[in-house]
């Protein structure tokens, strides 16, 4: 692909250099040895121009066709002016084909960087130029006899295609051709400049138009100084246009290279969430933005946003559609539309769709996780409220009753025997209520934290040893989850042979930002219990694993 383009560029340079040599213009005027400088300038300008054309030719097969046409036109133009010796019939056809330079330039300028102009008016203009040049060219060829043409000195081979020699008609048709060329080029230049698109094309058209108008105005052989000046102006214009073309083409080639690199990256492994950054790098457009319709949490961070807002000046939008549904909306600078369209091949589309699906999945998972966390939190809050209600309500009333019984006994010691059993019952009720309240929500966890709460579990009927526990407060949900697991696990100790339940141990560690809980000495566990642990820990983004008599729990604990 690249080799073909380089070869094409070399051919263009060689052939059009010949065309740019000013023989045809100067020889008829008697200039036998035009100054070296003039020839050198012409060659240099042509070389710059041709490198520009080669580099900036549109992408794709149709663009290559337009470029090819330019090349052929250039070569035959060289032949037409006699630089290349051809049979007579060849000279005639070459002259006709060389005329196609004008419509080819018009089409390329209007369509750049694509192969076809997009608005209908512009397509018509291009077609009309092709038609006018073709028809008038053929007509002139039919009536033109080089021998009868006073302006023809070199390359004036016999015209075997001439049906009838009519110098006046030939001259008129040439004028018509010059007028048509000037009109088409001016219109194209105006359109290109107004839309602020491919200005090198516009300048080239202006140059062609001026050239045509000057030749029209001269209406015959030019005076030598005028011809030299005109030629110098053409050289400067050609060099300018060629330089601009080369710059535009170079930046486009670089961008194309980046896009190719991006495609390679995508092939390798598209990391989800990086596609926007990759496209921004590839196109050099920091305002480019990919959004995925229907995804609540977009994969790209909001802080990455460039200041330019979507829909601002010069912004355009490309919507990627897959199976009839839009999967991604890309907002970018409008000048990158074509490059983007070329870059978004099937692989890139699949990668973007993949990123969208991953983003959607992550967004849903995050919602789900948050919802699980809320459910657990709400349950805990409700239990805490119940425990406080018990503490501040029923327990306080029972205490009050007990105090009043004591006062009665104090006032009248003879009541002691009767009231003592009542007082004991109240105390027992308080004991039971305390156990219930503790079961609903362990107050010691709330007030003294994990080490004290876990340590107090050794007061229960199962031998328990807390081996390690960081002496600092953690996030309440994490503390509750760990306490809940250890407290309920203690209900299922491993049974040793003779002396009842074996020792259960627990160790809590805080390596980095995670909490590790390790419990040993567990007997067979009901599946429902493990499920409860997994629900609770899973809601916090952690996990629990039980294997044999051991339990491992890992919790994120920022």
């Amino acid at each position, binding site marked *: 692909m690249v080799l073909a383009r380089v070869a094409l560029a070399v051919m263009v340079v060689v052939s059009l250099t010949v065309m740019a040599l000013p023989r045809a213009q100067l020889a008829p005027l008697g200039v036998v040895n035009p100054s070296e400088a003039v020839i050198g300038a012409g060659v240099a300008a042509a070389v710059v121009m041709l490198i520009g054309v080669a580099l900036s030719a549109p992408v794709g097969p149709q663009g290559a066709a337009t470029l090819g046409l330019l090349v052929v036109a250039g070569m035959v133009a060289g032949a037409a002016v006699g630089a290349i010796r051809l049979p007579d019939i060849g000279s005639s056809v070459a002259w006709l084909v060389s005329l196609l330079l004008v419509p080819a330039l018009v089409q390329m300028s209007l369509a750049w960087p694509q192969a076809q102009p997009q608005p209908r008016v512009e397509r018509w203009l291009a077609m009309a130029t092709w038609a006018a040049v073709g028809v008038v060219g053929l007509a002139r060829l039919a009536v033109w006899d080089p021998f009868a043409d006073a302006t023809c000195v070199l390359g004036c081979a016999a015209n075997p295609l001439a049906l009838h020699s009519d110098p006046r008609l030939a001259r008129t048709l040439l004028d018509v051709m010059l007028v048509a060329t000037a009109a088409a080029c001016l219109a194209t230049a105006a359109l290109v400049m107004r839309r602020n698109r491919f200005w090198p094309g516009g300048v080239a058209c202006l140059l062609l138009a001026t050239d045509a108008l000057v030749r029209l105005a001269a209406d015959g052989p030019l005076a030598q100084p005028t011809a030299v000046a005109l030629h110098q102006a053409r050289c400067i214009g050609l060099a300018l246009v060629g330089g601009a073309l080369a710059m535009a083409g170079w930046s486009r080639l670089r961008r194309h290279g980046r896009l190719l690199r991006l495609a390679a990256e995508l092939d390798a492994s598209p990391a989800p969430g990086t596609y926007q950054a990759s496209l921004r790098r590839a196109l050099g457009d920091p305002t480019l933005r990919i959004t995925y319709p229907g995804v609540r949490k977009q994969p790209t961070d909001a802080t990455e946003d460039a200041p330019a807002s979507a829909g601002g000046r010069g912004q355009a939008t490309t919507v990627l559609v897959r199976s009839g549904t839009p999967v991604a909306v890309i907002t970018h600078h409008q000048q990158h539309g074509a490059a983007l369209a070329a870059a978004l091949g099937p692989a890139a589309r699949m990668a973007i769709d993949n990123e969208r699906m991953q983003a959607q999945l992550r967004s849903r998972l995050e919602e789900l996780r948050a919802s699980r966390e809320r459910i657990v939190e709400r349950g805990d809050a409700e239990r805490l409220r119940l425990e*406080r209600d018990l*503490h*501040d309500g029923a*327990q*306080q*009333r029972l*205490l*009050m009753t*007990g*105090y*009043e*019984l*004591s*006062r009665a006994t*104090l*006032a009248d010691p003879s009541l002691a025997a009767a009231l003592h059993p009542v*007082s004991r019952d*109240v*105390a027992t009720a*308080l*004991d039971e209520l*305390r156990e219930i*309240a503790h079961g609903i929500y362990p*107050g*010691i966890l*709330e*007030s*003294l934290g994990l080490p*004290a*709460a876990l*340590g*107090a579990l*050794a*007061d*229960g*009927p*199962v*031998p*328990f*040893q*807390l*081996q390690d526990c960081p002496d600092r407060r953690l996030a309440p949900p994490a503390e509750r989850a760990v306490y809940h697991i250890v407290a309920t696990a203690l209900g299922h100790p*491993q049974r*040793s042979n003779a*002396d*009842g*339940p*074996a*020792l259960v141990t627990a160790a809590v560690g805080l390596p980095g930002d995670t909490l590790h809980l390790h419990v040993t*000495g567990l007997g067979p566990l009901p599946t429902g219990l493990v499920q409860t642990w997994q629900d609770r820990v899973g809601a916090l983004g952690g996990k629990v694993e039980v294997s044999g008599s051991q339990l491992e729990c890992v919790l994120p604990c920022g």
Partner: protein
Amino acid sequence: MRAAMRVVVAEDVLLTRAGIVRLLTDAGVDVVGEADDVDSLMSQVRAQAPDIVISDIRMPPTHRDEGLVAAARIQRDHPGTGILILSQYVESDYAMQLLREHPGGLGYLLKDRVFDIATVIDALRRIADDECVIDPTIVRRLLARPRGAHDPMDDLTSREREVLALVAEGRSNDGIAQALFVTPRTVEAHVSEVFAKLHLDPEPGSNRRVMAVLTYLKSPRQPGSPKR
């Protein structure tokens, strides 16, 4: 006969506070101030300079450990003021957290212990004498902890276990002697025997030995028991 003890009562539930205050008043204790949160408690302590502060653990605003925080501040800012924590919680950590800072003039009783007003009056006296008082229920729970085989506690006689419990409750040798109807010298012998069997350093002060015993009872068991 010593003068009536002056106490400040801190408890956020009005009903309970009124009950305690009436009972104490009936029993001849001089309640010089009442408080329902830490700030009012601190200002009462400053204004009244009571002998003893009786305080709940959970108070506004967070209902977590405000009573313990206030107790630590009183111990620091008003040394010599006794503190009796009345609580619903049987876990030993609350009491031990205070004892760790300041071993004397401190008590921790369950709220229903107050049903027996004589126990409370006795506790207040002991606190005023700079002893410490730990609720018997808490001590019982610690002693009843399941232990594995080859536990030094198994080597204690039942009398020695009684003595150990009374030591843990914060009683002096004289107090233990009175409770068990034996001579103080017998108690002394029992105590040194218990400490020897549990490999505890014989502590001279009775307050320090409370913490030592509680810590021993709470500490994870030594390795070697039971076989798994």
